[in-house]
């Protein structure tokens, strides 16, 4: 059974189709990139997969996550899947984190909830140890200081590491990364990409990587889907799509990216 099976997913706002007839599968440990520019529907797809679409935006078709149909299922029933079946890392950690809560407590919260649900509640000492080990896993040093910090006291890269630690807290099978490095500096981006790569491998998670940036996705996934105005115009293995794109739109994206690559190589 696939970890994630999306069949004929469409998303509508009123009569307007924002995503049309999207289908794909994701197996355990597999990495898929969802690429598109603004308005392509890539973020809506990630929200539809986790049942987080805002009210008024209506999905149709079918999304099976860990064997559970998502579309049409009440929120309360989806709660047990969120965090464990799939967890999301968003673009902007400053809005994803609670500005009024110390970072350590924000990471402890999903840990504690998961432990209670498993019937093995953690005492505060055990919880602190778990928070520490997550901070180590996302390569955040100075655990005590970081755990006591509020989000605004950390750098953008540190905040994104915290958001990743929270996503890992419930040991998800699928990590959805929605433009996780777009708000970061280039050098920080490289560190976060390397971190995600390592975590996904170490924990054998599946990865759904959403980005507008072809080169960012290129080295982190094995398959990609190119979205344009809600429709998948191209899908396949990364090497295949990059070397033999079938759709004009994919070609124009690749040409644009290659132009900047060539500029860096100083080969006019």
């Amino acid at each position: 059974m696939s970890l994630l099976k999306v069949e004929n997913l469409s998303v509508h706002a009123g009569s307007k189709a924002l995503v049309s007839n999207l289908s794909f599968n994701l197996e355990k440990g597999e990495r898929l990139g969802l690429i598109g520019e603004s308005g392509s529907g890539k973020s809506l797809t990630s929200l539809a997969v986790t049942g987080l679409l805002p009210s008024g935006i209506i999905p149709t078709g079918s999304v099976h996550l860990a064997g559970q149909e998502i579309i049409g299922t009440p929120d309360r029933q989806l709660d047990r899947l969120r965090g464990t079946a799939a967890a999301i890392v968003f673009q902007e950690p400053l809005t994803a984190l609670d500005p009024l809560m110390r970072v350590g407590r924000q990471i402890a919260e999903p840990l504690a909830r998961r432990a209670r649900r498993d019937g093995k509640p953690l005492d505060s000492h055990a919880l602190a140890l778990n928070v520490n080990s997550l901070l180590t896993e996302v390569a955040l040093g100075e655990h005590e200081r970081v755990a006591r910090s509020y989000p605004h006291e950390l750098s953008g890269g540190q905040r994104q590491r915290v958001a990743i630690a929270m996503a890992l807290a419930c040991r998800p099978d699928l990590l959805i990364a929605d433009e996780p490095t777009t708000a970061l500096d280039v050098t920080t981006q490289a560190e976060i990409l390397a971190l995600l790569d390592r975590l996904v491998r170490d924990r054998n998670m599946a990865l759904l990587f959403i980005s507008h940036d072809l080169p960012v996705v290129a080295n982190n996934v094995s398959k990609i889907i190119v979205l344009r105005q809600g429709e998948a115009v191209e899908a396949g293995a990364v090497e295949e799509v990059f070397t033999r794109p079938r759709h004009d739109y994919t070609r124009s994206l690749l040409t644009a990216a290659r132009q900047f690559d060539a500029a860096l190589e100083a080969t006019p």
Partner: protein
Amino acid sequence: MSLISVSDVSFAYTASRPILDKVSFSIEPGETIGLVGESGSGKTTLLRLLLGLARPDSGSISFDGAPLEPGDSAFMRHYRRQAQVVFQDPYSSLDPRQTIYSIIAEPLKSLKIPGNHAKLVAEALDHVGLPADVASRYPHQFSGGQRQRIAIARAIVPGPRLLLADEAVSALDLTTKVRIVELLARLSSTMSLLFVSHDIAVVAALCKRVVILEKGRIVEAGETANILKSPQHPYTQRLLASVPRLTLNEAQS
């Protein structure tokens, strides 16, 4: 004579933490130069100083040989006409309640530039590749790339000799980015361009010369081609190694 000359400029908002530390570089007439730095490098502060919105604590900035004097309103009016700026986010830099015509004509009015404004606005629109009939419309009717063209039209309408672009393509989609870079390259044949960006790939595509800023200091400066080929400073090396490329890693491909 350099168009802009920045010499030994230092600046701090609070005494304990310097933002710029003895920064020196120049912009020659007609030159396109890139200023590359990440968050906290001081690039935005440097731009504020270049716009006369703040004064250096020490060191000096001169335009066309004359020192920049933020307090001298006659000088500043002259300077504003010569040096214009394009910001990162075209969604917040265009007044949503003004027509495109009023937005682009605004610098002509505020700088009291004589002449046929309607004609100047039409020419500016033409330069940025927008049809004349957009003038009566409003910003929300345009895409991000079109809005950035409008912002560029507003910047070039007074006929500046220097265009300061602050992350002007960073908020745009890849394919749009390519087209706006092409537009800036075309415009740079008639004016100097200081292109401020964290994105060294875009700078490489556009600028012959580059200045690399880290934590308020210039760590490396020179011909873009040379710096790309053999970056000397460890920070430049790290920056270049960090840029994601389309080329797949050997391990995967």
